[in-house]
């Protein structure tokens, strides 16, 4: 097969070109269908139970995505509570309400929420908190006094220090976040205010992120291409030789990305990095071929013959390096995070594609070159390498490694020990907002707002009550009572009993209405008696089903809130208990001592009915369902770091263990901040699995390739040392282990093994041909070492354009890419020969018999 491929490439280069061009054209057209996905929720599979629950909760309590407008006034003594600031806020808020796509009824701002307060003795008043903008300073500070009595608003709509306010703008669809935030921006421009305005919120952040991702793909990836081109030009001094690998790289990137978008996958932060990963990897193989061809070609020779020989010669190591790299990325499939899986699959695909293109397109390219250029290429590329700085350094380091084999090994072991200590210090943490650079407006808004407020990050603890037993008992008892009743009355009621009871509010409402109707129609005292019993039973069951109206349950929830507040892990929590307390206080005269939960269920129910008599009755359903079977403790966090979230989760778990939940209650977390924790946990466990899986497969492949378990193990050394080293550094410098860091392990695996394969394969063939370890090593540190070093440098520098990317994850990847290349290059070129210097006999037992190591251990070459 190998030969027929080469044959086709050399004999019918036009066909190869045509096929590749057609593929590129088709897939290139598919790139137009690109869909950007920046929703962190998609880190979890759609059917993942926490995600499913989170979505159910969003629907249950009608949570919308919201743009957050922050207003800060640090200078005025009354903070935001001055005529000018509130006037501007009022104007802005009203203007936003008129924008299309804003869910007006749920917009939260000082001018759109209600106040309940005393108006003289025995009178309560429901009114808009700030229907009109204040005209006098007293009116402005009056609003402060009102807000300070409304715990649901304080520290949510206005900061505790009074210096900042927010407008929560719920939007109908995420797609609108960009145009709407632009509109709001324009409105702010017109405001004529000296206050600082910030626009943030998850949809805005996601949108900006998507935009920056395009920038990265449109600028950083081509920049990387350019960088690689220049580097190769420097090394090979022949544009013609360098253009071919660039063509392979571009074709690889375009076909892979075209396929990805064409197959309907969305481009997530991970997949947006595919081009930048594929570019250098694709170049590597072609560089191998081109440089070997340049070495082997003599002017006047038949290029077809030469290139066929070269490809034939390099086929196996290239296949294996490609396969192992692909395995490294395919192992990401073991991490159950869809964007990571897609990333792994398409990078693996790209690597294999690059291999195929290399062995087809490069020969075709060479065959199509005119003989004059070929001759030039051969002469130009050969001379400069043997006496460059790189060449001299490599020779020297090779000698050094051979001479101080055991010392170097000892240092390596020490390094590994230090790295393992570092790995133990790794903190797993991520926060999508931190994907923006520190001076990014979103990052700034995040910092400022969380300085003033109880937190702009949300998570929910959802409590749900379902007493199946009580409900069944009620249904059974009702049927039993209905046995005594004429069908005329009982049939409609039985139909109601048989209805789906998902919404207990509707279910009991319908049932009681039917019993009520039957009661009106019934004539006989016996029937009336039965119906009255049934009614009493139904009313009791209904009241019992409204579980989160029970004073004791609300007290329990208040207890959780107090504990959370004391713990310091949560900025603030809001619940239905707060609502009940506020309304109760105002109903009972406004004294702070009445800020409590009334003693009976009817009292709570009537209190809540009063709350519902406001301008925004629907606000209640953000914290409890209309049938009162489920309630949410809405928590605000000052940071979106999932470490902080995890602390709160652990704290609540401990609290629940000490203060058990009432019976039949299910407690579950939801909210974006929580979802982040979930996928982080999934990722860490998954990455470990991926790494182990890849490690095992790569080892088996190595053992197979070299037909030796010992050499297989030996080949794993560079990548093991590199992975340990890189993560050790991450641990020691205190960089959080986040998603980009997590995928680096696969990358390392794929690239380091490449060096090891080439190094071992060449060493072994030199060893065989020379029969002397010393001689083999000397040969090794000529062309092969240079090729490895060049590759390492090309890739490392090729990633540097990422330093200019607008988003932190890309910068991280760029930085660590360079580190990985450096480290794996050094381990391959220093540690491997060092190990061989004293363990060579164990590694190559067959050579031992031939006395290859006789001198090597004590006397290196040139001695």
């Amino acid at each position, binding site marked *: 097969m190998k030969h027929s491929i080469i044959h086709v490439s050399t004999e019918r280069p036009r066909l190869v070109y045509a096929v590749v061009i057609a593929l590129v054209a088709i897939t290139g057209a598919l790139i137009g269908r690109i869909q950007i996905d920046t929703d962190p929720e998609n880190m979890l599979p759609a059917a993942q139970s926490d995600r499913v629950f989170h979505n159910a909760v969003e629907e249950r309590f009608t949570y919308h995505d919201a743009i957050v407008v922050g207003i800060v006034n640090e200078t005025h003594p009354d903070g935001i509570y001055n005529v000018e600031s509130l006037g501007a806020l009022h104007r802005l808020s009203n203007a936003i309400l008129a924008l299309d796509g804003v869910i007006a009824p749920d917009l939260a701002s000082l001018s759109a929420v209600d106040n309940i307060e005393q108006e003289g003795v025995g009178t309560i008043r429901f009114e808009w908190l700030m229907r009109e903008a204040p005209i006098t300073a007293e009116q402005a500070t009056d609003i402060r006094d009102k807000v300070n009595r409304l715990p649901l608003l304080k520290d949510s709509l206005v900061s505790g220090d009074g210096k900042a306010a927010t407008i929560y703008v719920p939007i109908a669809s995420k797609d609108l976040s960009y145009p709407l935030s632009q509109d709001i921006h324009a409105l702010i421009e017109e405001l004529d205010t000296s206050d600082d305005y910030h626009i943030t919120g998850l949809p805005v952040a996601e949108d900006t992120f998507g935009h920056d991702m395009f920038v990265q793909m449109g600028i950083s990836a081509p920049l990387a291409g350019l960088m690689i081109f220049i580097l190769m030009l420097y090394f090979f001094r022949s544009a013609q030789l360098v253009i071919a690998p660039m063509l392979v790289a571009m074709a690889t990137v375009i076909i892979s990305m075209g396929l990805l978008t064409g197959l309907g996958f969305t481009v997530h932060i991970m997949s947006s990095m595919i081009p930048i990963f594929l570019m250098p990897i694709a170049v590597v193989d072609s560089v191998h071929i081109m440089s070997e061809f340049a070495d082997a070609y003599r002017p006047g020779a038949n290029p077809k013959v030469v290139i066929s020989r070269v490809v034939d010669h390099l086929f196996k190591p290239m296949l294996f390096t490609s396969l192992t790299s692909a395995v490294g990325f395919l192992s990401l499939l073991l991490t159950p995070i869809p964007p990571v899986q897609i990333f792994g699959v398409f990078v693996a695909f790209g690597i294999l594609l690059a291999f195929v293109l290399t062995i087809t397109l490069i020969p075709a390219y060479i065959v199509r070159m005119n003989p004059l250029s070929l001759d030039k290429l051969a002469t130009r590329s050969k001379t400069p390498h043997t006496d460059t700085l790189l060449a001299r350094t490599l020779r020297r380091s090779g000698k050094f490694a051979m001479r101080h084999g055991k010392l170097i090994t000892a240092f390596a072991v020490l390094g590994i020990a230090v790295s393992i200590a570092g790995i133990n210090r790794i903190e797993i943490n991520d926060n999508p907002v931190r994907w923006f650079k520190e001076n990014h407006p979103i990052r700034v808004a995040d910092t400022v707002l969380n300085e003033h407020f109880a937190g702009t990050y949300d998570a929910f603890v959802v409590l749900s009550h379902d007493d*199946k*037993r009580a409900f*069944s*008992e009620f249904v*059974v008892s009702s*049927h*039993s009572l209905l*046995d005594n009743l004429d069908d005329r009355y009982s049939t409609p009621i039985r139909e109601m009993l048989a209805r789906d009871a998902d919404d207990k509010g509707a279910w009991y409402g319908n049932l009681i209405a039917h019993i009520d109707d039957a009661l009106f129609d019934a004539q006989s005292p016996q029937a009336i008696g039965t119906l009255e019993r049934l009614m009493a039973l139904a009313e009791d069951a209904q009241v019992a089903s409204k579980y989160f109206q029970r004073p004791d349950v609300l007290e329990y929830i208040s207890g959780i809130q107090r504990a959370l507040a004391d713990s310091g892990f949560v900025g603030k929590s809001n619940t239905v208990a707060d609502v009940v307390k506020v309304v109760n206080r105002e109903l009972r005269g406004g004294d702070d001592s009445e800020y409590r939960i009334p003693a009976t269920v009817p009292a709570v129910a009537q209190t809540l009915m009063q709350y519902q008599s406001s301008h925004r009755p629907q606000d209640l359903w953000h914290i409890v369902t209309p049938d009162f079977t489920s309630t949410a403790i809405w928590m605000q966090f000052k940071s979106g770091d999932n470490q902080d979230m995890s602390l709160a989760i652990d704290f609540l778990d401990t609290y629940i263990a000490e203060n058990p939940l009432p019976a039949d209650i299910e407690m579950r977390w939801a909210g974006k901040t929580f979802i982040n924790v979930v996928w982080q946990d999934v990722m860490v466990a998954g990455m470990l699995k991926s790494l182990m899986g890849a490690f095992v497969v790569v080892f088996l492949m190595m053992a197979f390739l070299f037909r030796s378990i010992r050499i297989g193990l030996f080949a794993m050394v560079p990548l093991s040392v590199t992975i340990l080293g890189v993560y050790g550094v991450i641990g020691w410098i205190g960089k959080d282990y986040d998603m980009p860091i997590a995928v680096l392990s696969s990358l390392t695996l794929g690239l380091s093994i490449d060096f090891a394969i080439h190094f071992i394969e060449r060493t072994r063939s030199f060893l065989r041909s020379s029969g002397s370890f010393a001689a083999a090593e000397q040969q090794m540190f000529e062309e092969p070492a240079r090729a490895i070093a060049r590759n390492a440098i090309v890739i490392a520098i090729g990633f540097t354009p990422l330093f200019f990317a607008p988003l932190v994850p890309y910068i991280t990847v760029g930085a660590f890419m360079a580190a990985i290349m450096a480290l794996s290059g050094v381990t391959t070129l220093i540690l491997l020969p060092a190990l061989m210097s004293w363990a060579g006999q164990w590694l190559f037992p067959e050579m031992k018999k031939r006395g290859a190591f006789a001198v090597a251990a004590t006397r290196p070459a040139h001695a």
Partner: protein
Amino acid sequence: MNLRPLLLLLPLSALAQDDPWDDGAWEEDWGDEEQGMVWSGFAEAGLGTRFDTDELLDNRNTLEEVRWRIESDWQPGDVTVSLKADLGYDGIEEDWKAEIRDLTATFTIGESVDLKIGRQVQTWGTGDLVFLNDLFPKDYVSFFAGRDDEYLKAPGDAIRVTKFSQALNVDFVWTPVFEPDVYLTGERFSFYFPPADGNIAPTPPFSAPEPDKKFSNGEFALRLYRTIESTEYAFYAYRGFSKQPMFVPMNAFGASIRRPLGTGLANAETSFYDSRDGDDQLRFLLGYEWEARRNFTVGLQYYLERQDSADTRHMLTNRLTYRAGRDKHTWSLFTFYSPSDDDYYLRPTYSYRHSDQWSFTVGANLFGGNEQHTFFNQLADASNAYLRVRFHY
């Protein structure tokens, strides 16, 4: 502990000592009748209590009652009128109870046809506390609560025609108004309810609508039987309803055989329930009972129930009975164990007959198993011990 059940015993002793009905007045009123009426019966107090509370029920006890039984026969002419009635107070239901267990008129038509009309307790079939072709009403609540075994069989209003002949004996019972079992309602015992995924104890208690009272909804039961060389053969047929809710219309056909085998008695019985809702059932029973030692009998049964809608249920039962001291002491243990459902029910009892008047019984009902929904394990919280004191007169 709740003292009320103990107090219940007091009126009983008072009743027992100066029973106003015991002598004189009634005897004189009725005693002069030609046929003569003999009044007999007993007064009994019973108290049963759970080992654990059932969270679903307020009352920890399973049995709190005094009852007074009157029995009599009266033969005006060719007719025999018999009466068995219970009066009493039930502390669990907190109500007075009066129940007629038997009030029948029996007479003979022609030479070989007996007719028995009225409220009566009936039973047939070969099983020991396991019923296949016996589709007469059962009172499981009494059985589990610790009442006398007698009360497992519940009375029904029926007409029974029996024809004796050399070739074949025929029993035909017509119960004009369907008489269901006394099933678990959640009043005395909670029961498993699938939608709740657990036990429930509704108030008011569970009751299922019974079939309308019309002729075609009556129950018809037929037995043809004959003994040939000490082997009893019987064939059965039934038309009516399943005896447990939801009272699905059904027909049943079955057969049984019983004969001495070795030192004991072996029996086999089978029955097929052809159910209107399509959920047909096949029941099969094998049993063997023998006196292993003097005064010590052992009974073993294997029972199989195959139903379309459920897994096949296998059950093994074992009865051990030991009588001592001229039957003054009776020790007994009845065990139900189902390997398929992995649940069990143990009924140990000890009876002491102090005199012809006084007898005492202590016993227990122990339920258990692995899965909440199985028949016996749903009653795990109902496991109880009981004491009954009976005074015969």
